């Protein structure tokens, strides 16, 4: 339980922090932080039931994709603005670094192992996004029309 509470807080903080570094528009910071935090909680919870690398990351990416697209429509910003900061806690940065460190040290087999792991995480994130985007296009189309109609009145 503590894991979830702390996970939420730190997931929020690191998404907002990365949003600040990448100079996100101010109105998107809080929604992006919330999406990042929720995605991290999903990652933890899926991780309890499935200890592999693929499922937690994939589900996290699906959540980011669905909520990110929703936010993009509500806040009116490109989706990428939500993807970039939310991804930061899921992304295989540390693994990639570890693999490249081993590469520099000459431990080739460890380096290759880490690189494949980083690719696996990256791939599952990317596939999660594709899944989410396909669903989002179907669901949110009507919502978008509704908002546009409201505006044009």
């Amino acid at each position, binding site marked *: 339980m503590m894991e979830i509470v702390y996970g939420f807080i730190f997931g929020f903080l690191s998404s907002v922090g990365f949003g600040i570094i990448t100079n996100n528009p101010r109105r998107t910071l809080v929604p992006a932080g919330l999406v990042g935090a929720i995605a991290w909680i999903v990652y933890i919870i899926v991780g309890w039931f499935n200890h592999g690398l693929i499922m937690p990351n994939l589900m996290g990416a699906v959540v980011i994709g669905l909520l990110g697209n929703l936010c993009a429509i509500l806040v009116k910003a490109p989706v990428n*603005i939500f993807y970039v900061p939310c991804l930061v806690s899921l*992304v*295989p940065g540390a693994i990639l670094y570890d693999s490249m460190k081993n590469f520099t040290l000459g431990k080739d087999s460890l380096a290759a192992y880490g690189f494949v792991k980083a690719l696996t995480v990256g791939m599952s994130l990317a596939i999660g996004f*594709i899944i989410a985007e396909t669903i989002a296009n179907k669901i949110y189309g009507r919502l978008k029309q509704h908002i546009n109609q409201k505006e044009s009145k």
Partner: protein
Amino acid sequence: MGTINESDIVTLCGQVGTILLENGAETARVENTVEYVGRAADLPVVCHATMTGIFVSSEKSAATRIFKVRVGDFNLQKVDEINTLSRQFLRHEITYEDLKKEVQRVDKETLDFSWITKCIGAGLVSMPPMLLFKATWGDLFLAFFVGIIGYLVSQVVAHHTKTPYIPVALGSLAISVLANILGVVDIAHDANYIIISALMPLVPGVPMTNSLREIIEKNTISGLVRATDAIISGISIGSGVIIGQILIKSVMGG
């Protein structure tokens, strides 16, 4: 609309695309936006974007322009502003002249966070939730500051040199030196955890994921360019850390 020069429109479309691409939009979005802008200006254009160049060609005549692109850091504020502008232009809320003026402005200057805010942001990123129950709280607290210093070093170096990958390498060198000193004098519990978490703002995780997304969307060239870029900056970060480690180990022992 007929009075506007054709090559002028093509140039403007190219500028829009260049700004979008340089600041972290994905290629499919760049192509879409450019083509929308062209259509709204009554000139159907075809746009092909890769990570290194944008080609914009008018469909009515043979006017074509090539724009070279150097992809830099993320600056999502610019992406958002261009996006808003192009939407307004599509709905004919602003004129072509306004759009032109605004695009020039966005290219030169936009709202940015102050240095201090950015440092705090880097510090926050340096406490990744991934390490919450692996590293001790003290280590995470230290990583907050080490991460800020690493980010600062890489930004300052980036101001002074145009050589790619040197900023991240020096940033990670600074992080590694600091973390290893803290580890040797027994302030930190485990130098490795500090290094990993303080590296979070520098590490190319997001570009890596974006590159895979591009490859899945069949923008293979852009995807490969991004992936290579991510791997090379991973290597420079790795070597920066190793050099720092060797330095401290040989100077201070331990």
